[in-house]
């Protein structure tokens, strides 16, 4: 046993591995959204049938805003979960989908084939996506009864997260809306 080799080898590789292991704590590509904890930017958008949805009018009930597109695979993965969520919290939480750079006709066809969990809102020129700082679909914003963004999900929403945030938002007293 050559101890010198052992010590030098471990001396270099162990700290290196420790630092690399530490690096998983942060994803360098995720920039903390400055929007969390702030009032959600308001929007007034038409869905595919031309019905207007105004975020401000939904104050008093929690809202989940999901930016999505049919070409985005994680969006497909989370589709059944959002369907289930919209069914479970019907009348309690509003589910709004904002189309992210996709063709309204393609979206309509998709909704006809696989069902929809909420209105598909047409975001002309991506103004709302820009206001929310969306980098790419899917991104999901959880807005509480007071219109404050309490959490943001980048990428696919997972069942645990949806359940946890939804319950937190529902537990918040309705009176706070004043």
């Amino acid at each position, binding site marked *: 046993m050559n101890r010198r080799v052992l010590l030098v080898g471990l001396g270099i590789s162990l700290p290196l591995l420790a630092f690399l292991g530490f690096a998983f704590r942060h994803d360098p590509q995720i920039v903390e959204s400055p929007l969390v904890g702030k009032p959600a930017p308001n929007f007034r958008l038409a869905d595919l049938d031309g019905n207007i949805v105004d975020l401000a009018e939904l104050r008093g009930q929690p809202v989940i805003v999901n930016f999505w597109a049919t*070409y985005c695979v994680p969006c*497909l993965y989370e589709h059944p979960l959002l369907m289930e969520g919209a069914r479970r919290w019907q009348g309690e939480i509003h589910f709004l989908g904002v189309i992210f750079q996709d063709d309204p006709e393609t979206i309509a066809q998709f909704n006809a084939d696989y069902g929809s969990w909420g209105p598909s809102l047409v975001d002309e020129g991506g103004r709302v996506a820009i206001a929310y700082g969306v980098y790419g679909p899917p991104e999901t914003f959880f807005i509480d009864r007071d219109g404050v963004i309490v959490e943001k999900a980048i990428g696919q929403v997972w069942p645990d997260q949806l359940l946890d945030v939804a319950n937190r938002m529902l537990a918040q007293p309705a009176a706070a809306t004043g």
Partner: protein
Amino acid sequence: MTSALGQGFVLLGLIAAGFGTAFGYIAGVRRSAAGLRLTRRLALLFAVAMVGACAVMWYALLSHDFSVSYVAQVGSTATPLHITIFSLWSSLEGSILFWGLILGLYIAAAAVFQRRGHEDYLAYTLATLLGIGTFFTFLIASVADPFAPTPPPVPVDGPGPNPLLQNHLLMAIHPPMLYLGYVGMSVPFAMAVAALLRGQLGATWLRPMRRWLLVPTSFLTAGIMLGGWWSYEVLGWGGYWAWDPVENASFLPWLTGIAALHSGIVQQRRGTLKAWTVILIMITFLLTILGTFLTRSGVVNSVHSFTQSPIGPVFLGFLGLCAAAVVVLLALRIDTLVSEPSNERLVSREGAFLLNNLLFVSLMFTVLVGTLYPIVAESLRGVKVSVGEPYFNRMAVPLFAGLLLLMGVGPALPWGGSDPKLVRRALVRPLPAAAVGLVVALLLGARSAPVLIVSAFAGFALWVTADQGLRPVRVRPRRQGGRSPLAAVLVAPDKLGAYVVHLGVLITFVAVAVSSTFQREAESTLRAGDTLRLGAYEMTFHGAERVQEPHLIRHQAEVEVITNGRSRGVLYPSLNIYPNQREPIGTPAVRTSVGHDLYLTLMNVGGDGSIGLRAITTPLVAWIWIGVVVMVLGTALCLIPTAAERRATTPRAVPDLAASPAGGGR
């Protein structure tokens, strides 16, 4: 159906690799010929399984089978055929599958080509390679499964691969070249492991090991160059190297691989540096795994990094396992590799090789520290930092200059370096060439000290390279009675090859130094009819048009290039808009000539028909790529067997009792 077939092949590969690893080590310990035969069959089965899995994936991609999740992720009916073929390696899961394919091919090659004469080593080698194969097939079968069925609803169309990868044909060859380099390092690594386990590293095993190291190093060289070229042709910033973490990741094993190639020469000639060569080869392999981890895990920020995924922790585990195995194996067995006694002088060929190794390893550490510093800083101080080009340039350029000097001094020095008079003469003779280098640089307008020093070193090295490289041609015919130059070269093609590689390095070195020092640029907003001037160039903008293609919209500007009042042709820099990407992606237009490149980038297209145009002239860029081609050609020469090797392999076909040492002792 397709999913199941693909997963079946991967499972088959996993089983073959797992059993092959176990049988191989057992066969190695017991020196069992039957065990080795079985291991070789499992190695070939692993290769077949990997080829099968990739064939299934290609079939799924080409038939737009969106029920396979990887196809749903990167496929699109609008994507042209050739891009669909390359999309196998355009995203995380597919690229790991492709990795498995290359590993399979390397393993098959090792099993076939190292068949004779090395039975004791081969069982350990194949076992180690299949151990690596076990990890990768496990990865493909579990956390990075490209064959996972898409959950319903199965989409009717997909987004297509990342637009940056669709934008240029170089993307078709840059990743495979890099993978051939990365994965190929497993073979010399496995051979070094075998040498340690056998406790013996003689010339018969060293030669093939060096050769198996030469192949991936050459692919890595080509891969790194193609990456730089792609970056230059596609990214639109006019440069080719940015010390991006992933570029660095490919650079690290290249540095130690080259160091090992050089220390292997000393070992071949003098029987020394055995343990050191083995250590360098092992570090090289570990660095390829580290590089893959950095790229695939998303722990560093880069144009290349894939998003964070469960692959990261698994890969880190594998890296830890490999590092632990290497350290323990080295500690236990390194003392069995006894070098022959030596009393070297520093001013000798051997001394130069040692210094060369020292510089390469220092460079590796410099780059490693710069690449990982952001991670370290974040863990220790909780701050986000990035290490930019100034650090790398300041640290690496002097080391590179040192290597350039050594490239001239080293080959000029005699082995052993015993006679000071001989040493002095060897070092004085190239000095006029150094002076010529200096004068040429001064005449071309260089005034900064680093550029002048590099030019003098380059002149020195060029003279020595030519002198040494042509030596067999000059010396042989006289001594051996009129052999043709070709026959003289074929006695030891690796000698000439080595100096051809050095020539390529010199070309690239000078081209990098000049192109990074003398770049000029101009930028302006132009309306139709306006002209932008840069040096001798006048660039007149004639108008922009919008072209609709199936998978993208292209805004293309027509720019006429004029010098000395004569039109030199029209360039079309463009901005491409892909449906799944918010930012448009530029495609620069490049006019390449022997002396310099004119590089036009479209910065933006205004609603009123105006454009933002940026023009860059960079001298000698083309010579960077030419130098690398010369390096690769030189490597090819090195791979031709020498006359001694050809003689050695021919009689081995017959039972080699007479050739063996035992036979000689009768």
